[in-house]
């Protein structure tokens, strides 16, 4: 069992409240996933800058790591820290920075890379994680959150969701995949980099790989129906998009709701109950093996 929430704003006036509303939703899903939690927030990008979100595996000097990374990629890195997380921003080659950090730095995990995406995660009570990492204060256009009850791999920060391996793309998963080891090997041969043994990271990497090959989000998810074996409800974010997919058996719960102001996902209706205007929302259970996707203007 895990809990998923997602909020995709259509009304820009709500953007300052994105983190606050996501926090209320995540709070409702605490008991579905009490061992760890995480969230991705899509914030307004700064022109020309790539952001890498990092979390420390062991105590480290972020400023020193930023200097090392800067030397490795030949560009300046600006550092912001928050608790055990850091955001490295650069006008240099973000791909090279991610590659360097994954291959050469054992003390940190790269959570995300992109113009807009920021991912934060932790182990323990979801409410404490939200509070510690300031979820309620974060603004943006869309957010995806996850509360985890681990089944397939260890309870670690790196094993918490969301997973992100491609630019501005992230995935959260409720369920378990049975063919992830073979698929991981295939994706590694195509140059994908993995940081955990987690099955959900493979799903994230599969979608990122397909979109790098030119697929749209919808096409990549349609491919996932063929490529992934197992149980899943996925919620996926891209810089401008938001999507939901359930496996053909559809054991893992899912509720979607939409108003003129937002689209929201919850593992259960409880997660949607705190949203403004939910009493007038169109509410439905997403059908099995059906891609639901929304896109906002670039």
């Amino acid at each position, binding site marked *: 069992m895990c809990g998923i929430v997602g909020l995709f704003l259509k009304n820009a006036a709500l953007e300052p409240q994105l983190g606050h509303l996501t926090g209320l939703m995540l709070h*409702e899903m605490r008991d579905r996933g009490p061992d760890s939690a995480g969230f991705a927030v899509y914030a307004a990008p700064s022109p020309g800058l790539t952001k890498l979100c990092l979390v420390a595996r062991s105590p480290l000097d972020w400023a020193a790591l930023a200097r090392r990374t800067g030397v490795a990629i030949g560009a300046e890195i600006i550092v912001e820290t928050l608790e055990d997380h850091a955001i490295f921003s650069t006008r240099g080659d973000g791909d090279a920075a991610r590659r360097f950090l994954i291959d050469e730095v054992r003390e940190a995990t790269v959570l995300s890379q992109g113009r807009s995406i920021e991912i934060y995660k932790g182990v323990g009570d979801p409410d404490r994680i939200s509070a510690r990492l300031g979820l309620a204060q974060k603004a943006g256009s869309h957010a995806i959150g996850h509360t985890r009850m681990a089944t397939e791999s260890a309870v670690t920060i790196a094993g918490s969701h969301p997973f992100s391996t491609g630019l501005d793309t992230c995935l959260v998963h409720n369920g378990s995949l049975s063919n992830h080891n073979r698929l991981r090997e295939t994706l590694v041969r195509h140059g994908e980099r993995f940081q955990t043994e987690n099955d959900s990271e493979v799903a994230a990497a599969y979608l990122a790989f397909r979109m790098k090959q030119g697929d749209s989000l919808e096409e990549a998810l349609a491919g996932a129906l063929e490529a992934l074996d197992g149980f899943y409800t996925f919620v996926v974010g891209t810089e401008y998009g938001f999507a939901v997919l359930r496996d053909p*058996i*559809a*054991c893992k*719960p899912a*509720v979607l709701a939409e108003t003129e102001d937002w689209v929201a996902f919850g593992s*259960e*209706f*409880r*997660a*949607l*109950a705190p949203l403004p205007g939910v009493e007038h929302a169109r*509410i*439905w*259970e997403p*059908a*099995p093996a059906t891609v639901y996707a929304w896109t906002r203007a670039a």
Partner: protein
Amino acid sequence: MMRTQRTAEVSSPWIDLDLAALSIRTVNQRLHDAPEGRFRIRSPRGAHALAAGLTTPLAVRIEGHVGYYCAGMNQLATVVVAGNASTGLAENMMSGLVHVEGDASQSAGASGCGGLLVIGGNAAARCGISLRGLNIVVKGSVGHMSAFMAQAGNLVVLGDAGDALGDSIYEARLFVRGTVKSLGADCVEKPMTGEHLAGLSRLLEAAGLAGKVEAASFKRYGSARRLYHFHIDNLGSY
């Protein structure tokens, strides 16, 4: 086919219980302690196990969407949900009436033994799984694997049925007015006799559909009885 319903006195006043102020346990305890009466539950906000385990002829109206296992194990009570219901609605229901005005998520009426479950909207996957005598009327459509291993009772669907309807079914009766995407193992279409039409008409009437929906507009599905009977030709498979 139908069991007699006893409902609360119409004259008794509504007692309001608001989950904005009371815990789920408190609300359920108030219901369990009442031999009779009418209760209106406000602010459910998707809470689980609301009005579960009732054993007396209460009238309960829940004003909003409910979470898992609402009205589970119900005996004698009438529970109306003015909203949608999550997984396991009225699971293992024994008697009484449960009526959800909106949609129901998966496994609605699972293992139900008796009474009537009415779903005003659609029911998701596995509606009436392992049905054991409960009657279910769904005004919309049902998802895949509905009436899986159903043993007794009736599932009436005014809309369509998803994949594998009635897979591994025993003796339950399935009536579908719309299309069936596919039939499950050992589930077949069967002729609609006078007995079936009469029984279906009674169920439609009980669900408030008398004069609105014709029993003759349904098709009947049930067990081919090839799967659950011992067959000597299958000896090597046992």
